[in-house]
């Protein structure tokens, strides 16, 4: 008997604990930014969301390679969930980025920031992933074409960042360009814990969705086996693997 969501409890607890610690650090430990004040703290949510979303897109592409190599549809399911979750995190990243832009530059959107612009382009591309899947009815072809898309789009992510960054001068918020070694120690620690928390959240949600989807497929298989083909009903059109 397959057990669904094995190890999920431990992962969930670790996620909640890390995010709690991260929030505590953000509000009580990390220093106020000298120029931007309190609003700068959205950085600790915005940047990890965006980084995790981008990694999720690339991971979706890598999982798609595994799908095309093995022909095993479980890799397509994993790739789908990776991209699907990355899209949700990416929307979060865009919204928090927009709020930050409004607070620090007075505009909801700025074209002068190459990271934000590249991120928007990547989001626009991956937003077509679901419509593409939805418009292919045969589940196998859907899986195959979606994997081809995921690989092409995954490779697009770094190339796009290079092109957009070159197109605009590097005019980025003070803090973000400092990402890495030049962050003051306390900010660096807070950022690292926040990034870990968001990454764990992504991993947990990814696992939950996989478990739910696999349970649903198993249920359908059992219904068909026990009650005959008609009992399960026709499979609805769906963008998700089935």
């Amino acid at each position, binding site marked *: 008997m397959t057990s669904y969501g094995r190890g999920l409890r431990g992962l969930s607890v670790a996620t909640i604990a890390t995010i709690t610690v991260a929030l505590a650090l953000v509000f009580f430990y990390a220093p106020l930014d000298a120029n931007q004040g309190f609003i700068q703290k959205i950085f600790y949510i915005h940047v990890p969301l965006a980084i995790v979303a981008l990694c999720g897109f690339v991971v979706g592409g890598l999982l798609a390679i595994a799908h095309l190599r093995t022909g095993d549809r479980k890799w397509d399911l994993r790739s789908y969930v990776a991209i699907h979750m990355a899209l949700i995190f990416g929307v979060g990243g865009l919204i928090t980025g927009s709020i930050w832009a409004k607070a620090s530059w007075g505009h909801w959107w700025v074209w002068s920031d190459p990271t934000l612009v590249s991120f928007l382009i990547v989001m626009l591309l991956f937003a077509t992933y679901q419509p593409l899947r939805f418009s292919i009815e*045969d*589940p*196998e072809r859907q899986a195959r074409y979606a994997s081809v898309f995921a690989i092409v789009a995954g490779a697009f992510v770094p190339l796009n960042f290079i092109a957009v960054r070159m197109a605009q001068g590097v005019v980025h918020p003070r803090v973000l360009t400092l990402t890495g070694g030049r962050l003051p120690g306390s900010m660096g620690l807070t950022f690292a814990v926040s990034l870990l928390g968001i990454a764990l959240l992504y991993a947990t949600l990814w696992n939950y969705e996989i478990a739910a989807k696999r349970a649903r497929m198993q249920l359908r298989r059992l219904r*068909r086996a026990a009650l005959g*083909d008609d009992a*399960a009903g026709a*499979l609805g059109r769906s963008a998700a693997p089935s």
Partner: protein
Amino acid sequence: MVDQDQQPAIELRGLTRRFGERAALNNVTVQVPTGTTLAVLGRNGAGKSTLLRILATLLRPHGGEVSVLGERLPQRAHVVRSRVGLLGHEPLLYRDLSGRENLHYHAQLHCVAPERVERLIEAVGMGKRADDPVRALSRGMVQRLAVCRAVLHEPAVLLLDEPRANLDPAAVELIEPLIGSGNGHTRVLTSHDPGAAIEDADLVLGLRDGKAAFVRQPGEVGAQQLRELYG
């Protein structure tokens, strides 16, 4: 019948192919000895065309073993491709090109000498109309060109999906030497007319909902078996 040391031209063991959740072919097992004809009977949607498309390497099998001329599918599809000819529902000809242009295009893809195209065009009596665009031809003429296309590369195995559809008796006479049983081809054929197909066959496979209802000698297929398939 089957020689002990001679491999059958087509061998299916437990062939299964799904479309989504539906199994178009379910655990079909049959052997076709070299040089013989297998007639595949069944209602629309029973899996006849799917079977032909798998043998033609256009569809991949999902389960079971398939070998054509001793080569496993899908692994050795590239080898099989040059030795099977498919005549399906679609003529696979571009409507805006002439019959001659279409056949020369296929000849290039199959590395066939251009002279063979001309010989085939004459053989099916299309010499006068070979330069007209395919869209201007009658369905019978298109079918004759499609036959030329299917046998262009002199395949050892012919896969024929209702080969005589749209043809008048005179045209059937013309294509018979190309796709008939006389010249040593191994053939798999389907037909909307079970009587004619059985007459033409050495072995009959009855398909019902993707499962093999029976595999019998033509003489053993009677009214009861047909009722089973079509009833």
